[in-house]
């Protein structure tokens, strides 16, 4: 197959959208946190916890959607921890974020080992299956890519629409955006900045966890160590790349995933001439490149990473 031909195959786009789905969830989650003024570096660990929580719920006999809900709840709890330390206490969002990642990851591994002490090859679950949408899925290439995915992928796209609606069309969204730009504007209107930020971090963390759960419930169908593999950090880059706008961030996630799907196929074509590690490095290198390209002209939320104390202006 030719290097350009790949781009016109349905399987390529199916893979791209599948790869994009967890990134979309987590990027939307991070975006909500940052729009409220909190950088959430707990993302990598929260995705790990979500991946495990969702998978384990189903493994233990739960329903698939219950698994998603449990993952979201686990994410929200780690979000609460993060927010408690960074919002009212105003601790460094960098250090706390890394701390939450380390804690969520280690707690997950601890629990996994506790629950399955002897297992060497990770057990599989009956995960979400593709659910082709009648009619639409028959459109060539696009139909297969967009309308023959699992329900969780559909949910990812619905999430983007909901986040757009939330941020730009609801009274709550106004408060979230204002909290990340000028928290004193929020407090002057009698709204608690602390409450808005804690809420945003919890909701955002729940989405990150669902992103993690996608991997175990809609992609790999099992849980293993190190499975998030830097996806969380990539999502942080995607938020910057998307200039803190959900639509642009979605586009970024899909572009990124397309590139990732492309490199896998390219890897097969080049057949060992180029070390495969070079291809695996690409996503991370691309994220750094994206950051460099947009960092200068990005209009970031002005209160991002700045703790707010009541009455202090």
């Amino acid at each position, binding site marked *: 197959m030719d290097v350009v031909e790949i781009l016109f195959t349905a399987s390529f786009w199916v893979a791209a959208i599948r790869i994009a789905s967890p990134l979309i969830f987590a990027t939307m989650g991070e975006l909500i946190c940052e729009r409220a003024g909190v950088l959430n*570096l707990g993302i990598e660990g929260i995705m790990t916890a979500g991946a495990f929580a969702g998978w384990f719920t189903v493994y233990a006999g739960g329903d698939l959607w219950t698994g998603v809900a449990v993952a979201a709840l686990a994410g929200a709890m780690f979000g609460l*921890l993060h927010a408690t*330390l960074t919002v*009212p*206490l*105003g*601790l*460094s969002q*960098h*250090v*706390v974020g*890394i*701390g*939450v990642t*380390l*804690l969520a*990851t*280690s*707690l997950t*591994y*601890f629990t996994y*080992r*506790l629950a399955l*002490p002897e297992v060497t090859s990770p057990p599989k679950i009956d995960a979400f299956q593709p659910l082709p949408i009648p009619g639409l899925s028959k459109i060539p290439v696009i139909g297969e890519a967009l309308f023959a995915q699992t329900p969780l992928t559909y949910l990812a796209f619905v999430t983007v629409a909901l986040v757009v609606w939330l941020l730009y069309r609801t009274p709550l969204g106004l408060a979230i955006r204002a909290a990340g730009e000028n928290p004193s504007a929020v407090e002057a209107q009698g709204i608690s900045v602390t409450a808005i930020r804690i809420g945003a971090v919890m909701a955002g963390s729940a989405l990150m966890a669902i992103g993690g759960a996608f991997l175990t419930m809609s992609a790999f169908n099992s849980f293993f160590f190190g499975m998030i*593999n*830097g996806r969380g*950090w*990539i999502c*942080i*880059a995607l938020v*910057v790349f998307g200039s803190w706008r959900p639509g642009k961030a979605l586009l970024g996630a899909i572009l990124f995933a397309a590139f990732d799907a492309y490199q896998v196929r390219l890897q097969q074509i080049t057949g060992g001439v180029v*070390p495969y*590690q*070079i291809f*695996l*490095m690409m996503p*991370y*290198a691309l*994220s*750094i490149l994206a*950051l*460099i390209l947009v*960092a*200068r002209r990005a209009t970031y939320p002005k209160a991002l990473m700045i703790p707010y*104390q*009541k*009455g202090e202006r």
Partner: protein
Amino acid sequence: MRLEPKPAPTLAVTLLYPLGAVAATLVITSLLVLVAGASPFSVFYLVAKGAAGSQFALLETLTRSTPLIFTGLAVAVAFRARLWNIGAEAQLYVGGIVTVVLGTGALPLPAFLLIPIIMVVAMAGGALMLLGPAVLKTRFGVDEVVTTLLLNFIVLLFVSMLLEGPLKDPMGLGWPQSSKVIAGAQLPRIIQGKRLHYGFVIAIVSALIVWVIMKKTTLGYEMRAVGHNPQAAGFAGIPVNRVLMKTALLSGGLAALAGFSEVSGLKGNLTLDLSPGYGYSGIVVAMLAMLNPVGVVVSAIFVAGIFVGADAMSRAAQVPSYIADVMVATALLTMVVAILMTRFRIRWK
């Protein structure tokens, strides 16, 4: 709830805060031990015994603390200037790469020449590794947390590529590992027949040097000023960007020494599991030490003890050794709260 600044507590009181954080950590993690169906007292006793209960255990703890002292120093130095270096893991591997590139026969020199050369080149490599993110931060405003984190993955893949390519050990039976370093590139053992090596001594000396830099030199002063308030530091004429570059070089260099000392003193060759996350644990070590270079030695030994002890404990009790990682992560979070309490008073109204 509000935070009010308060006068700095005395040194003795200051030392109580990390102890309080550790105590809080023990309480929190004992809940997990209970969930695992074991008694916290016996588990912590086993951890302590495994970490310091015998000469073997103690030496093992000190051996394990060596890379943690280096990465802890790297993080402490960087965080002081508020350069968020989360990439000590990558810089460590660069140190390891340099050690095997130069130490497996490329430079057939005696140890007293070869080891200093390797150390200098390794430090330079690690320093350059962090210089990139530092330049991106100062020139383009790219957050260094994300770049250093992403570089960790890139470097690990790079190591994997080297180990399956140019650095592959021909005798390695296909395992991704490098050849062993020659005798002249090996750090001697402190006690014959035991694993503790002179890397530990180098680590202690490094900590003292860093302490002198931070407390006594203009560079240390500049780093602290930039870390506390870059705008005011710049206004006073301190060259903020240049200070950040110097900080990056020092921090990256220190982290690379961890890789050097692990390869040259302990493992003998480079593998993909050279570091079980020493770069990340270095953050915990540095925070527990409240970024004090001498404190880093103490906290590195403490953290190493938890890891060594937990390994021993999990063999005896049915509690997964990941409890150590949980303890370390919890300690990080309780410690940042403790540090806050040394500077601010929380008023609930």
